[in-house]
């Protein structure tokens, strides 16, 4: 378990102090995939670097498996870091080493014998599907392949935790999806606890169990992804989850209704039934729904007809239905 307690980080510079993190309290349970989302500059990269002490927090404690690692002497901290691997947005592979020797790097650091290291690296390259690239060099790989090598390298030291710092932000949507699937597979099969830092909600809802939303150096909101996704409480979470482009929604002027799907009504063709029952058309302005283990969560914004009669018919229908909804302004 990773516990952060009253964590603060302040950078002092000639132009004054900058608070990067303020009073962060959170705990990440073993075996889960925990997401940390925020806009750039919110402090999430600093936060993840405090977990392995690449950044020293100004105050507060970082407790890993019950041990406050801010108190550890350096050699023990270095040993501890082997159990907390990290992958990066820029992949950060050693350009002058082959793929195989990149994966054996952490084992070399730990003093593992060459032959054993090589065998392990080959096995890991197989896990990430790149065993035929063992003798290639990073410059010969695509972005997605580089990140797979970085993942294999991160797994070489048998870590309990894997920190992912914007690991998919430099990748295209298809590659992103396959990398996220790989991370989920690693979480399920190897039981590695994963911390995902991202600015993209789709990354969070594709693989995370719980999420913390960071805004202005603090945690604005934290909870199960399905809860935060369907019912965001903080302003920042709403901004991240709900449509960014308000202009697209400002249309002709019918009443706008937000329908909230929270897993109860996913089997029913609600919109069709509503329009058929009411004999009135609706305009779907925005829809973002996600499938979590066969249950649909999400939002949809519909615009009612300008005709008052038809609009009130639909409102009455909605009032009598089990669908959660509210009027948008």
């Amino acid at each position, binding site marked *: 378990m990773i516990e952060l307690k009253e964590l603060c980080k302040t950078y002092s510079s000639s132009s004054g102090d900058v608070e990067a993190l303020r009073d962060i309290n959170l705990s990440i349970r073993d075996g889960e995939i925990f997401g940390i989302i925020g806009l750039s500059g919110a402090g999430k990269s600093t936060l993840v670097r405090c977990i*392995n002490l*690449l950044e020293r927090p100004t105050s507060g404690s970082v407790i890993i498996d019950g041990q406050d690692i801010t108190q550890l002497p350096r*050699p023990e901290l*270095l*040993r*501890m*870091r*082997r159990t*907390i*691997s*990290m992958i*990066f947005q*820029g992949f*950060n*592979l*050693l*350009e*002058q*080493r*082959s793929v195989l020797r990149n994966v054996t*790097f*952490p084992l*070399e*650091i*730990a003093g593992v014998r060459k032959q054993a290291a090589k065998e392990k690296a080959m096995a890991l390259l197989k896990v990430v599907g790149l065993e035929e690239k063992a003798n290639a*060099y*990073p*410059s*010969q790989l695509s972005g997605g392949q580089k990140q797979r090598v*970085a993942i294999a*390298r991160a797994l070489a*030291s048998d870590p309990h935790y894997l*920190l992912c710092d914007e690991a998919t932000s430099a990748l295209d949507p298809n590659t992103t999806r396959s990398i996220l699937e790989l991370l989920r597979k690693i979480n399920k099969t190897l039981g590695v606890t994963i911390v995902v830092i991202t600015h993209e909600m789709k990354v969070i809802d594709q693989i995370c169990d719980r999420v913390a939303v960071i805004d202005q150096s603090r945690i604005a909101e934290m909870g199960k992804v399905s809860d935060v996704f369907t019912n965001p409480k903080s302003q920042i979470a709403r901004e991240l989850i709900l449509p960014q482009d308000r202009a697209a929604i400002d249309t002709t002027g019918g009443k706008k209704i937000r329908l909230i799907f929270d897993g109860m009504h996913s089997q029913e063709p609600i919109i069709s039934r509503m329009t058929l029952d009411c004999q009135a058309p609706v305009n779907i302005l925005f829809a973002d729904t996600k499938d979590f283990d066969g249950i649909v969560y999400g939002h949809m914004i519909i615009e009612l007809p300008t005709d008052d009669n038809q609009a009130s018919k639909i409102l009455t229908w909605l009032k009598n239905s089990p669908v959660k909804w509210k009027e948008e302004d």
Partner: protein
Amino acid sequence: MLSETFYKLWEAGILQRGIWETIYMTFLSTAISYAIGLPLGVVLNITDREGIYPVAWLNRVLGVIVNFFRSIPFIILMVAMLPVAKLVVGTSLGNSAMIVMLVIAASPYIARMVESSLKEVDAGVIEAAQSMGSNNFQIITKVLLPEAKPALIMGAVISMVTILGYSAMSSTIGGTGLGQIAISYGHQRFNPDIKWICVFLTVIIVQIIQEVGTAIAHRTDKRITK
């Protein structure tokens, strides 16, 4: 007439000796200078504010020393350092003394060259190595130096050519080699042919060093897709 002069000098073994002495002085000075300049450059890099082991005062002190030696023109440095040569090799004459001078001049230069080559290594890669629990020594030997290898080799080529130039200058105070032949046989005895022959041979040596060095740097660089 040029070829005649060349033939005569060759027959007398003067040119061969000159070439050998130039190469010997250049290579030996470069090797010794790297033995000093490489570690110095590494220390300058890692103790920098942005380095992996920032030590502001040490970085500053070394920086000042390096700048001091680099700011003195070689010809003056050479004369000023004669007593040091005497202290180190027991004489202030001959090639051994000249090598001491070349090392004093080249080491700070090489230190800066190494420092800037290491600065080119991606900070993210260093951070990745740190996240895996590497200690600073491992980062130097397994990340900084290997990742900067092509730049370091190119730097070595530039340094070697500079040292070759310095070695010719050292003939003004008793060094030997092609520079000395050009000055004492060519310039002082009013024989421009000899001067040009020495220039020509020097150009060839420099070309070979440059081409071979570039080829090695290119071949070892794995960033280039072949």
